[in-house]
């Protein structure tokens, strides 16, 4: 039942992901780089738009749902991980990518993140971390640094910020990476590794917000990031290494694939009752004779 058209026969091109809709983000928004890297990664992985399901949460990133091609779903605030997980459960032939910001991921929908990682649903999750709520005009988010005056908290927030990677690594994920919206090439590379990973791929994207985040602009990150690949003998299969290297968010900020466990299978391949199945549940919607089951009640 798959699409058998031109898109499947030739290698996909960046232009295939073109949308006629005009971007509505601020000048220099980190989302431009993220969209660019996402397209490059999809094309490099030879995913045509008809096999890509791009799921967007609410926020500035979600406003980009119609500025890229692919099958897209623009959902509700905080819920996109669960929605995307449902897509991945149903059809493992799809490349399922979900995007959400720091408010959605660590505020409104933190439970979905935790259980999405536990379930190891086969999705690539792009965590847009720009340290504020942009679309609602610059309120504090769970990752806003203390003491930063924000819309609705003029004297700064007085709650401890969430350290996203520390929390994610504590959940024993199967894939955790970090990148930076200002380095499209690096992000492209990390996203490709995430897409290749079978399971829940958590990718934190340190994102600039030129309008509301004056503290950590593009240049701030540029000066601080380093790829863990540059470290001698960095062991990405060690959770301890990942925790240590990812701890610092102020001076030396580690990016790249911080942690990966290739031994665990994604959710849908881990169903005790479906080990013999080679089809997806999308293909299995067929009449089922329940006579034998009903007879157990006679």
């Amino acid at each position: 039942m798959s699409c058998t058209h031109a898109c499947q026969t030739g290698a996909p091109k960046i232009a295939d992901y073109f949308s006629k809709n005009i971007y509505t983000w601020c000048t220099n928004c980190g989302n431009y780089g993220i969209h660019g890297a996402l397209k490059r990664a999809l094309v490099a992985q030879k995913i045509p738009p008809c096999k890509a399901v791009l799921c967007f949460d609410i926020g500035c990133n979600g406003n980009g749902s119609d500025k890229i091609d692919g099958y897209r779903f623009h959902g509700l605030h905080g819920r996109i991980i669960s929605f995307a997980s449902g897509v991945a459960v149903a059809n493992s032939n799809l490349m399922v990518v979900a995007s959400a910001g720091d408010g959605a991921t660590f505020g409104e929908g933190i439970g979905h993140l935790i259980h999405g990682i536990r379930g190891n649903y086969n999705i690539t999750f792009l965590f847009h971390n720009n340290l504020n709520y942009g679309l609602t005009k610059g309120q504090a988010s769970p990752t806003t640094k203390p003491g930063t005056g924000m819309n609705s908290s003029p004297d700064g927030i007085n709650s401890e910020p969430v350290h996203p990677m520390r929390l994610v690594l504590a959940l024993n994920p199967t894939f955790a990476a970090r990148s930076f919206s200002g380095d499209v090439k690096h992000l492209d590379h990390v996203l490709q590794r995430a897409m290749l990973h079978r399971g829940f791929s958590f990718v934190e994207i340190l994102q600039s917000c030129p309008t509301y985040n004056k503290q950590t602009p593009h240049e701030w990150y540029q000066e601080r990031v380093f790829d863990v690949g540059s470290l001698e003998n960095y062991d990405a299969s060690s959770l301890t290494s990942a925790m240590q290297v990812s701890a610092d968010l102020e001076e030396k900020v580690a990016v790249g694939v911080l942690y990966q466990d290739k031994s665990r299978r994604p959710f849908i391949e881990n169903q005790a009752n479906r080990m013999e199945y080679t089809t997806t549940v999308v293909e299995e919607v067929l009449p089922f004779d329940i006579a034998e089951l009903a007879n157990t009640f006679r």
Partner: protein
Amino acid sequence: MKQTPLTTNRLQRLVIKAAGESGQGVNSVGEVFAKSIKESGLYTFGYREYPSLIKGGWASHQIDISSTPINSSSSHCDILMCLSRVSVKAYMTTVRPGGTIVHAIPKLFFTEEEKTFLEQNQIAVKHVPAAKIAIETGGMSVMANTVLVGVVWRMMGLELKPVEAVIASTFAKKPDVIEPNVACLRAGHTFDIGEFQLKGPVFTFDPTLESTMLITGNHALSLGAVAAGVRVFYAYPMTPSSSILSYLASIYHKTGMVVKQIEDEITVAQMGLGSMFAGTRALVATSGGGFDLMTETVSLSGMTETPFVCILAQRPGPATGLPTWTSASDLNIAVYAGHGEYTRLVVAGSDLSSCYTLIQKAFNFAEKYQIPVIVLTEKQIAESLFQLRDFPKDEPIERHFVPEQERSALVSSDRFALTESGVSKRWAPDMAEATYDANSDEHLEDGSLTEDAEPSQAMYEKRLRKANTLKMELPEPEFYGLKDAVMTFVGWGSVKHAVIDALALWNTERPDMTCNYLHYEYLWPLRTDTFKELIAQNQPMVLIEQNAFGQLGALLTQETGYMFKEKLLKYDGRPFFVEDLIGFLEERSSS
């Protein structure tokens, strides 16, 4: 609601109630009774009451027995079989005058008030040293329940063979306990409890009933879902929907269904919607509190035109309410759930056949109209034991995807194209080269975001037009009982059973005062042609609902302007008993 007992002869039923503490095996005893009655060639209906506790309190499983089909309970029993002291006290007032209490409690005392009650109602109390008998017979003390079953079975004057067969099949996985249980059953059966009276009806046995099914509404819904091609089930446990989750999990090696207990109902709904978006059939189930959490997703389903099917098994609210009791008070939330205005379908099951068929139809409608469909049940339907020969014929699975040969011609703007019916073409990811954006923001025909007035209004109206198209396809409510009746009950859900069972008695006794019943299975959009005919004929109508607001009545008023002058509403967590209806009709006819 207080009921006046009817005689067994008027009811043509014999009623056995097994009662004890929660955790004492009361439900299993009830099931053994019900199955044995079926195996004996009679009709039965099993009604459970239990507290929201793992152990303690009191619980009961009442088995009504008849020569004709029954789907409701009597408020009073002929034999109350008690395993615990508390249950004797809790249920003694539900014993019919002239009935018997059989119990296994040593040194059971009654207060003066209780003694007077027993005396006035000529209720005999019989003690059976069941645990002692069980041990003497070579069994264990837990087999006291089986001893009591034997005692009661003898009182009923029925043959023991069917019970032995049921015990053998019940313990098929623990063969070493079959023999001692059968021995305990026989010991109970030969135990002399002395004089007692049992004025049961004379039964007519039908040996073909042996092969009928004895099954709950939740099991019927589950099997209907399997037949509908549902391949994914997500749920968070919540009474009275939980047994759908446990049953589907118990058969998942046979069905291959993905059955996943999820961390919360918000996720349940979102994953369900995601799987439906991908093009499979995914089902979710919950009760009122869980449904509250799902409502934003119901709204999202309406906006993105992604099909969604949810079973909402009702229990009394608000908040935690009466978690293990029955109600039909969530019609309003089913009809109004979720912010914004959009098309949805709300249906309500009542018995095994309707549950089995409705869940299949729910998916066909959800996919045809690309809307949320809410399938309402009640604890009374979800967990009661109904008897049925066979399920209705399976509904054809209608996916309503664009046919494969037409997919290459699709363009993105087909997906949400503004059509007269309101329904646009649907295809899932990977089915065609033409992609789209299923956008929770207001959008254009290809899903691209818009905030412009004209296209926003056009898309809004397109989604609402689906309700008119859908309504034309829905059936009118169905009449039960005589065509010519001096009064018509109007209701939905489980009330159907008590009404039908009571009218079978009433219409025979009072041919001058015959009544019938108009049953709504499709609740929203609401069909009112039949109802309006009744209004035009000035037919007296009584609204009967398992809630306090008269929620269907309010919807009918909203749609037709008709105001119900008479309402029979029950909201104490108990279902309508036959006596509730007969009492109402008697009072009504004498006033």
